[in-house]
């Protein structure tokens, strides 16, 4: 695998919706390269015949009845944390140009 470039970092930041300063982009290019180099030690671990693990409880398809629960809070309690509210709705910037 090729080393991470500054362009890779800027592309990753764009995908993750984070804007980086020039300094941050340079810093992350070096640091992330070092970290990825370290984790690549896994290439030498023999995993022939093993399946990947995504969870360890062994639980499958946990479901519950589709009923409304009283969580003890009102709409107003939730809207208190919203940056911009208008007429009881969450207001966001325009999406379509």
């Amino acid at each position: 695998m090729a080393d991470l470039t500054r362009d890779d970092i800027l592309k990753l930041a764009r995908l993750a919706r984070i804007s980086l300063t020039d300094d941050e982009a340079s810093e992350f290019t070096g640091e992330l390269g070092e970290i990825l180099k370290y984790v690549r030690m896994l290439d030498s671990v023999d995993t022939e015949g093993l399946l990947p693990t995504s969870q360890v409880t062994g639980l499958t398809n946990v479901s519950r009845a589709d009923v409304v629960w009283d969580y003890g809070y009102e709409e107003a309690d939730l809207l208190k944390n919203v940056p911009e509210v208008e007429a009881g709705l969450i207001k966001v910037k325009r999406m379509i140009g």
Partner: protein
Amino acid sequence: MADTSDTPTSSQWLPIAEIAAKVRIGELKAVDLVEQSLQTIADSTEYDAIIATTSERARERAKLIDELVSNSLEGEGDSDIASMSLCGVPFIAKDNFLVFGAETTAASNILKRFTAPYQSTVIELLEKQGAICVAKANLDAFAHGSSTENSDFMTTKNPHDRTRVPGGSSGGSAAAVVLDMVPFALGTDTGGSIRLPASFCGAVGYKPTYGLVSRSGVVAMASSLDVIGPLTRTVADAGYVLDAIAGVDPLDSTTITRQENYIPKALDLRGRKFGVIKEYMAEGLDPGVRLQIESAIEKLAVAGAEIVEVSLPTLPAALAVYYIICPAEVSSNLSRYDGQRFGYSHSNAKDLEASYSQSRSIGFGKEAKRRIMIGTYVLSSGYYDAYYKKAQTVRTKIINEFAVAFENVEFLIGPTVPSVAFKIGENSTDPLQMYLTDILTVAVNMAGIPAISIPAGTTDGMPVGLQIMSAQCNDKLLLDAACSMDGVLA
């Protein structure tokens, strides 16, 4: 409150069970305990362990509990006081637990001023047993770190040496317990975040089996690894807390069936089989830490335990697995912080896209960004198989090695951390060096097994932690064994 001889270090707090018993019969007042706790917090501000107190609600709840007690002593009312195992016991929650009406920041700028509209299941369960939350403790922002230096607000100082870190990410919780602010504190452990600060500060830190404690209402970090557990002064206290919070919760579909009780009962160590993990005693271990761990193992042998050496050859790769799986899950979990529904929002953005990226750029600290970027990289098409899937497959190998080991021994032991607490700033410029602090704790999270760190002496005046692990769902036996070791090592 008088000091008692059966607590390992001098403390103003009685064992949790005794405090609760005395409150239930009116011999101690919950209001006094809360004031005592708040006073200790006020006297220890130079350690920066606490983000905020929840004094108003704590005082109200204490008053209510005292009223219920006096009513029940007069034969009035129909309260559950008699069955409250943590009646009137003050505690501190890491600031990634939602506590009703309190700010919950996860020590991050993006959640500054976020007020919890509901309460985490764990806090609900503790309150049901009469416990009282008095404050929220500092952490590495979003629990990303091993020192609390990644907190967006402040670095907590180690109670034994203020120039050193307390460990992380539950560093505020560990320091709070050791500074005697409360009888217990809550932490979260994704790669060692309860055990590591317990080791660095000289506390007991318990990481339960994955799924044993509900995570509803706790700020998510890496969902296949995150667990909740207590930090205390004794193993017995940790058991009482776990007993109050363990079990299936309909609000967290990863929760598993609990055992009947977790109240520790000292185990006769004679004939019990302990495996010393060979890879954990390898080079790189600080000589002072090695000495204390070897002496602890010696004491175990003297107490009659059978000690064997066990090799789990893939454990040295666990950290590499962790630093793929953890950031992958972090990048997914942190995508909800977009500046629209809650949290910091950049008000001058020109459109939605800019609002997302500017809110996240300003709201997230460096480590959160670092992990989001690594996670985004290892999950992206083209790299997914080479990194993420490979890491998940090595995870299987680690799980299998633990399973084989536990066919032959009941417990595995080794150091919790290869060193004692490092100096503030010592590792903060090199993220990889900082990640290496977790090298002996992360494998447990991979396998979802329970583990505990208990104090095992000091070297150069700084605490050393002994880590004991057992098989999945063997929490009660692990606590029983640790409880007897608490006595043996003291």
